[in-house]
């Protein structure tokens, strides 16, 4: 026996509509997400490209500055400048050089520290 359609509840009639709306939202959301993702990929790839260009520029600039520095540090250049400026620079004579003996490789005995350690072992506080 067929039932009376008028007696069906409103909730049952909204079910397919909700499903359809959900499906539409899902499809629309996916489409928007896809476009957003593509847009992000494009934006990020542009950023990568810009960053790579910037890195290249900085590397190139660094290279040029290194050459400039090497020019300025060149013995020939320094020699010429020293002559031009007429500063009266001359190599130090051996008599003008004071030589200090090299410190020994082994650390010198620290008697004070040894005493303090001994005192601590005996129960006294360690002081600096």
């Amino acid at each position, binding site marked *: 026996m067929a039932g009376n359609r008028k007696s069906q509840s409103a909730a049952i009639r909204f079910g397919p509509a909700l499903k359809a709306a959900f499906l539409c939202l899902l499809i629309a959301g996916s489409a928007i997400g896809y476009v957003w993702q593509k847009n992000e*990929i*494009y934006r*990020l*790839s*542009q950023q*990568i*490209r810009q960053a790579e260009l910037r890195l290249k520029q900085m*590397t*190139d600039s660094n*290279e*040029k500055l*290194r*050459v400039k*520095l*090497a*020019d300025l*540090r*060149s*013995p*020939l250049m320094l*020699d010429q400048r020293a002559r031009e400026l007429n500063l009266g620079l001359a*190599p*130090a*004579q*051996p*008599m003008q*050089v*004071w*030589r*200090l*003996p090299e410190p020994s490789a082994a650390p010198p005995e620290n008697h004070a520290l040894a005493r303090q350690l001994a005192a601590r072992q005996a129960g006294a506080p360690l002081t600096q």
Partner: protein
Amino acid sequence: MLALTLMVCAAFAGLGYRLVDLQVLRHDELAKLAQDNTQREIRQAPRRGDILDARGNLLATSVPVKTVCADPSLIGNQQALVAQALAPLLQMPEGEIYPKLFPRVSKNEKGETVTNNLHYARLKKNVSEETWQKIQLAMSRMSFGVDETKLAKTNRQFFNNLRQSAVFAEPDQMRVYPNGSLAAQVIGFPGVEEFKLDGRPISQISGHGGVELSLNSSLSGVAGWRVTATDSKQRELVALRDEDVQPRDGLNVVLTIDAAIQHILESELADAMKEHDPVSITGIVTRPRTGEILAMASLPDFDPNNPGAAPPEALRNRVISDVMEPGSTFKTIVVSGALNEHVVSLNDVIFCENGLFYYGGIPLQDAEHDHFGNLTVEQILEKSSNIGASKIGIKLQAPKLYDYMTRFGLGAQTGIPLPDESSAQNFVRPPDKWGKYSLAQIPMGQGVAVTRLQMVMAVGAIANGGVLMRPMLVKRLQDRDGKVVQQYEPQTVRRVISDETAKEMVKALKTVVSDEGTAPLARMANYVVAGKTGTAQKVVNGTYSKDKFVITFIGFFPANDPQICISIVMDAPKEGGHAFGGALCGPVFKDVADRCASYLNIPPDSPATLMASGGAHSTPTQLQ
């Protein structure tokens, strides 16, 4: 109605066929065309490594530059205007640029016609970034004398393409030597290797001569590549990048050369060159304990930034490539051998025949004014008696003499990592190939030939307690971040003479710079010097010249704790028959040695200096 239906069906069938034709039947062909239009494989050139001195100063480096190219297919008939715009910026005559802007068809090695020149013409290499920016600006502002707003879209597009894409630049690198000619023959100079990749010429720097050549593979690095897609304006679409393999940059080579010592040596050699006008002058500074080469120079030299301007002989590193008769410096080897074999001692007296000695029917002579009678072995070295040295050689006998020559490294390559090193093997012959006169002639440094490097290493062996070291030119290889990839250590070749013999030799060689010796002008104020002079006649047209000499001084200091060994050699100075090693090379040695000692802060050992400073070099208590 039926007819219309049939027509619509036929149209759909036609479209369907076209679809199948494009998407199925011609899929592979068209897919490849589409890929070729957008996909690019880009070679990523590695950066060539630097060459640094022992203290990290740049001796050779690579800087980024551009190679400016044109696409003739985009220029139409505007070649004259483009050439006019580019000529002043590229500093080239218009007439040179103009023909390059026409599309050309050429043939490859197989005789096939290729059309690459329709799209690619190289205009100039090594263009700076600043110049390239000016070129871009000039191209973008070009006017062609037509009102482009009234032109059709395709014509407007043509002018836009001409401005934006007809002239383009490829990244490249240029070798730069910030110190100019400093150590030019040691470093070498760059050349360009060309090869084709996908029909396009690719150039890469390769070394010519010196370290640039011998360590070319380490300096070169390995190219990378990138497979990517580009848009219609050839801009990369990073999102569609497929493969991206970064290039592996070349390694930096750190030499044992010290730029400051190299400059000291070269400036002193240049002064001597000016004063004595020799054909050439060479100098080497080594550390005898390790075999490290601190400086190596040969004048005339060249600027590696412009090697084409130099004559070919200036490119040659005479220190390793030229052989010469060593003259009296060879006596150090004869006397070392004889002392080591206990054939003589320093105090043995040898009669020097009053300056004239016949051996094998041929007269041997001492220097013009020398008529020595009895001399001790030490005095033979001090006064450089040829007859005395010959008699010592005769006592030593040929097999032993030859043995010591080879043990000191003569007649064999030293193993320095430089190209074109001569071994002088043909000039250090075994005794069975000697003439009857050779045994007397060789000990005085005639009838035998060596390279300058072999000789300084041999004298360095005496300074090093009798141990011959391999010359060391490369300290380490490192990457761009300074991480050491390979470290080289000093290498001992062999013990040549005993430590005692070496000490005796040093004692004898100290007398050479005394007032009675042959090189008082090589004496230093604050250091005890040991050394030996050499004055060898040059062979001209097969006979010994009477007015052309190769003169030498090889010495080391402080004699009792040798830090530095220096060799100075002049080839045919203007003084001619009056040129002597002690007189001309001795002062050059002294000047180089004084400046090196000051730069390296070597403690003095001269008794006079020690006395003057109260034996005080110095203690903390004395500072107070």
